């Protein structure tokens, strides 16, 4: 049995007096597709942001790809990670945001090539060739010269996915990537993610409210509530036969709100 690629061990995190993560532990296997669901404020986005080093942790440990994320081992001691260590660890992880976070002053091509050229020293020609492959993969090869403001939300999100992929991370984090989209644009983004799951062996973690997609896409579903994982299992178990009362009531509300499961 291979070692987990992500090992989260007793992570706690508070915003002021609000405890977002309360001793959270979880493991993710290489290549696994994981869906994180749960009510807002349950900590599912926060753990994604912590994995991307966008938040600091208050306590606990995280191992990514066999190495400590927030700590460095020096002479047998665990010290807080410095910026160099974090930069090295970030190479393993890519993230796609709810609001795309494209660089508005750069065209689609430059959005995708900027980081590989700056952080990996890839030559422009090679970076652009790779970017064209990725844009082709997300169906936007014809938009390479467009500015982000000229694109629809669905197109922007697909560029954001290509941009994250350009750094070839082992792990991709998707934070409610369809929540800000008009309903008719959701499917084009989900299709890209389906394709990605089918064509690569990347580990993918997604926070989502698209229960139908989570059901079809994920190998495993984690239900979060109040900073802890209340229930986890195969999509069918969680969505068809939830055991915990809190999972049941959450899914009932979601279905009542018109979401397909």
């Amino acid at each position, binding site marked *: 049995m291979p070692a987990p690629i992500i090992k989260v061990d007793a992570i706690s995190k508070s915003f002021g007096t609000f405890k977002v993560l309360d001793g959270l532990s979880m493991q993710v296997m290489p290549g696994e597709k994981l869906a994180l669901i749960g009510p807002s404020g349950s900590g599912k986005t926060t753990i994604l942001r912590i994995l*991307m*080093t*966008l938040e600091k942790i208050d306590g606990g440990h995280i191992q990514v790809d066999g190495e400590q994320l927030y700590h460095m081992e020096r002479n047998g001691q665990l010290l807080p990670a410095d*910026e160099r260590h974090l*930069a090295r660890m*970030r*190479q393993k992880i*890519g*993230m796609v*945001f709810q*609001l795309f*976070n*494209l*660089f*508005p*002053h750069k*065209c689609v091509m430059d959005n995708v090539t*900027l*980081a590989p050229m*700056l*952080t990996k020293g890839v030559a422009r020609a090679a970076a652009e060739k790779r970017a064209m492959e990725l844009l082709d993969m997300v169906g936007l090869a014809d938009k390479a010269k467009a*500015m*982000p*403001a*000229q694109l629809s939300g669905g197109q922007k999100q697909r560029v954001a996915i290509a*941009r*994250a992929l350009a*750094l070839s991370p082992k792990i991709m984090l998707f934070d409610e990537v369809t929540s800000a989209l008009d309903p008719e644009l959701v499917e084009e983004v989900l299709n890209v993610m389906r394709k990605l799951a089918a064509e690569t062996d990347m580990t993918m973690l997604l926070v989502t409210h698209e229960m139908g997609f989570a059901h079809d896409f994920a190998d495993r579903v984690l239900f979060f509530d109040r900073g802890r994982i209340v229930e986890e299992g195969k999509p069918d178990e969680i969505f068809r036969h939830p055991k915990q009362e809190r999972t049941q009531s959450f899914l009932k509300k979601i279905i009542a709100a018109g979401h397909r499961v």
Partner: protein
Amino acid sequence: MTQWSGYLGLILQGALVTIELTLMGSVLALIMAFLAGMGRVSRFFIVRAIATAYIEFFRGTSIFVQLFWAYFVLPFAGLSLTPLQAGVLALGLNVGAYAAEVVRGAILSVGREQYEACTALNLGRWQGMRHVILPQALLVMLPTFGNNAIELLKATSVVSLISLADLTFQAQVVRSQTGSTLMPFLSVLIIYFALALIISWGVRTLERRMARGLDGVRV
């Protein structure tokens, strides 16, 4: 009339000195603005402290006094400046202090999500600043930079006090030589105004060019 055209030549010579001061002062102001403005958002306390001290000191003391220090007091410390050098130094440092706050505000106005995208793409602090944050912040700075440049243009008249023959200085020369008050002062009024208009127009053009593509309409 021929005599008047000679005096007009004097005033135009003064205009050249004013333009020279404005350009050189603006360059120094711009450098100081970015140094101090970015220093204000530094991670390091000592850098923030130095930047803040510079900004507060040069905003808090009169440009006249700063100019007198640059021209009359610095020589006692072994640093003798020509009137032009002293003028550029005082103007650049003074206006740079105001513009530094513009730089700081513009950097802080770029949304947090842009900084987070930089982190997620593993850009270093300086790489993110240089390629993502500053280009967007620059657009926010430009209109106020235009104001600062016009302020600097008008402030150049103080150098007449250290006998630099700028526009204002020459107007007084012409007035004392001809006894005419209206003509020299009217011409310098018009020239200052025309120069300010040129600055406004230049900054607006730059703004339009830089905003191109950002709103999805103009490409």
